[in-house]
């Protein structure tokens, strides 16, 4: 049945995007085109519900509502993936920011503790610090 091929194709796309590092301008544009296509199909389905049923039958699905449900699941998977990748990118930036701040702060604190300037002066093992 066509619907199975279609849904399997969506799963394959999700997997590929997940594992490979497709990012950047083309991906961005692709997502936007997909979004507008999605809106257009929505509008069409609202105006002419029977067309959805016709389409469902052509794809081997009994009812139009079922087709909508299947596509919703596929769309949800893609949206989730998109959010996940976005979060990772945010996480990366957050890490960079935090690291920069942590190191700057540490340099001040460790200088106050007398560790940074006297670094080359104190002996390898201070008396009383032996384990």
């Amino acid at each position, binding site marked *: 049945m066509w619907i199975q091929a279609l849904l399997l194709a969506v799963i394959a796309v999700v997997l590929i995007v*997940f594992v490979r590092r497709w990012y950047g301008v083309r991906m961005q544009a692709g997502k936007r085109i997909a979004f507008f296509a999605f809106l257009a199909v929505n509008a069409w389905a609202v105006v002419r519900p029977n067309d959805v049923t016709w389409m469902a039958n052509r794809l081997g699905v009994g009812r139009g509502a079922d087709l909508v449900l299947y596509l919703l699941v596929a769309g949800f998977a893609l949206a989730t993936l998109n959010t996940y990748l976005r979060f990772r*990118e945010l996480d990366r930036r957050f*890490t960079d920011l935090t*690291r920069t701040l942590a*190191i700057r702060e*540490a340099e001040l604190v460790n200088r106050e503790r007398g560790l940074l300037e006297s*670094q*080359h002066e104190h002996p*390898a*093992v201070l008396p009383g610090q032996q384990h």
Partner: protein
Amino acid sequence: MPENEDVWVVIPVFNEERVIADVVADVRTTFPNVVCVDDGSRDGSAERVAATRAHLVRHPVNMGQGAALQTGLSYALARSGGKYFVTFDADGQHQVEDARRMVEIARQGGADAVLGSRFLDQPRKVPAVKRLVLRAVVALSPNTRRLRLTDAHNGLRVLTRPAAERLRITMNGMAHASEIVSQLAKARVPVVEVPVTILYTEYSMSKGQSLINGVNILFDLSVRQRG
């Protein structure tokens, strides 16, 4: 110049107040320069470190061991005079003697990255489930295979400055170990593996990598965006 003044030991710390002061003291008998990265611990780890002569860097929030390692390396690399960089676990499972031996190997020019392995010498001492997980991770990461490494997830490593400068750890969680290996392989850094002894105390066992963590590692690695 005192011995090992050109070595920096990086210790990522997360909720290790019970042992961290002893570990630092132990390391400092051999290596004077220690930087502990407190990864947003909720216990008194940072205070314990502050009471020692180790450098302390504090993450204001918990970001994961990989992030802590990179922070420690960045901090240590910014100190002039550092030529060798050691990564060392905070839970006391590594031996300072092993680290000293590995630094010697790096000093002799044997390799730019010296990695500790639990499996070269004493595979029997590693608990069976853990051995299985670690083997699986090795088998599934192509770079580990190419370098013929036996243990991709050992926290004890010695890097020369050029090798350490090449690293960009982006895996904040536990997948960073595979990421380090993969970046070293990609940059064609000469790597050797040496047997090290791990003390599996009850304490370190409770903090080590579980089977569940293995799943997380594989997931993180499969979805990374940049190799």
